[in-house]
């Protein structure tokens, strides 16, 4: 399978001597969903920022379809790689539509204004995340989960080949989590590749084609969900005992933190 996004031996540090990323490599195949798992502070967000091109690595290289990412001009890069940040509070009370419309920025010339085609794309993106009823409401009046959906819609409106999602389902209820991840799965079948950082190994079991597990700035396991999401790897990454429960009869797996005396 063709590789869309490739990272080679990325290193990064905010404070000299403390490596946040220490030789991270990964490859994102076309039309696939890659999950990044790992404890808080293991470098997931930094890695996503470097993969999106907004942060330059200290050393190492990112390749986008065989092109060096840092050689691509910013607006053309943003047409091909998008980053959906963790939820934030904007200063202005823009409507949902206006927020999503900003995803069109890389496609418009410097003095350009969004046109009818952009509005169609925006409305379609809003529809995909199920926010159509709220699209004229101020973004600041939305619940946390709805804001997250609006930001994801903005990423969709950006129409990139690769979309990097930073903990997209952290604030969502199970139904909205499913809605977002099903949308992701559908888009991945069509054209887009996703890199998703998450603290939810169960979503990775359900949706990932490929899982990368990190610990303290290094990749400790990388491969298919069934190969990687083992008790041993997860326990090592999170620094605590984890159980992988397998129900062979129903063909399901689930990851649970181990709590002695409750289940066994």
């Amino acid at each position, binding site marked *: 399978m063709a590789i869309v996004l490739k990272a080679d031996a990325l290193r990064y540090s905010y404070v000299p001597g403390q490596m946040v990323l220490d030789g991270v490599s990964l490859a994102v195949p076309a039309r696939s969903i890659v999950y990044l798992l790992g404890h808080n502070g293991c470098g997931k967000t930094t890695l996503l920022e470097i993969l999106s091109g907004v942060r330059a690595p200290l050393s190492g290289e990112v390749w986008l379809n065989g092109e060096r990412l840092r050689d691509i001009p910013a607006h053309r890069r943003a047409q091909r790689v998008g980053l959906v*940040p963790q939820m934030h509070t*904007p200063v202005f*009370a823009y*409507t949902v539509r206006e927020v999503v419309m*900003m995803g069109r920025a*890389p496609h418009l010339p410097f003095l350009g204004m969004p046109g009818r085609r952009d509005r169609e794309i925006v409305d379609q993106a809003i529809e995909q995340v199920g926010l159509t009823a709220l699209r004229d409401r101020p973004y600041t009046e939305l619940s946390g989960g709805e804001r997250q959906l609006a930001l994801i819609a903005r990423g969709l409106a950006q129409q990139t080949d690769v979309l990097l999602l930073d903990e997209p389902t952290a604030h969502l209820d199970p139904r909205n989590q499913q809605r977002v991840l099903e949308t992701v799965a559908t888009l991945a079948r069509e054209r887009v590749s996703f890199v998703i950082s998450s603290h939810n190994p169960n979503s990775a079991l359900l949706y990932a084609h490929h899982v990368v597990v990190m610990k303290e700035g290094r990749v400790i396991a990388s491969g298919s969900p069934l190969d990687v999401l083992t008790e041993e790897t997860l326990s090592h990454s999170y620094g605590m005992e984890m159980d992988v429960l397998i129900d062979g009869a129903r063909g399901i797996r689930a990851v649970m933190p181990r709590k002695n005396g409750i289940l066994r």
Partner: protein
Amino acid sequence: MSVMRYVLRIRWGQRESRQRLFFWLLLALPLPLAIYSIGIGRYEIPPGQVVQALGDYALHSRQADFTPSIEYNLVTRIRLPRIAAALLVGASLGVTGAAFQGIFRNPLVDTNILGVTSGAGFGAALMLLINADPLLVRVSAFVFGLLAVLAAFFVSRLYYSAPLIVLALVGILIGSFFNSLTSLLKYVADPLDSLPAITYWLLGSLAAVTRRDIPALALVTLLGLLFMIGVRWRLNVLSLGDAEARTLGLNPARLKLMVIVVSTVMTAMAVSVSGVIGWVGLVIPHAARTLVGPDHRRLIPATMALGAVFLLVIDTMARTLWAGEVPLGVFTGIVGVPLLLVILRVNRTGWQ
């Protein structure tokens, strides 16, 4: 009315419709108000004659057999320059305030945060102290306005990576520094001659505006307004903050620098003509946001129109309410502060 409703697709219950209505009303306001305002004064001229005089000015004034009437001379020589200046200065201060609030992501700033007005005040006071030619006063105000911001910019560079907030902080300090220098000049100024002139200039007035002042002001202001209209949608993206603007392919540092340079030149030019006029840059963006919403696609043109209208009304009051002129800076504060208080009470859509 039903045609109007159809054309504007007004549904009062919907914020979007209401904001669109306010937007178009605001844009339609400056021209008729200007015509009406030209007619007001010690010598009243009906709007019809004002329009005729303006028409003559545009079409016939260069013809050999054209004999100007009293109204014509009054309209084109005395009142038109002043009213044009009020519109241009008001639009300038309003829109630059909105742009600054957008890029600083802060409701408390206007262009003066970087010290431009304080620098201009010092420049003007310096020339007034030596009784220089009015033109020299203006040039000096303009130059020192730019110098103050340049100083803020380079001083803030001394503090390593210099985020925008450091620039603002240094700008406030540089502004205070120039204010102190101005106070020093006032202290040494002749209390019968140059001191009143300096004080009057610092309160702002359009009374001394003549036709000579208009071309430079109009050129700089109109170019600046065009720039703001051009980048207005990008200001939305910029107001998300640098990190997100970069993921959306913008170069936030470059765009902010452009906005700061254009706004500073516009403000320095406006203040060099009008003297110090406070509050417009702060109040107008808030008022406009309440009416048309925070989207800069509408906000930017709306602040131009509302700023122009606000200063026109203030200036018309200043020159007609009492026999003597009242300084503008006095009025903008006295009208502007209560207005801002009302807006802060009403506003639910502008700021989080």
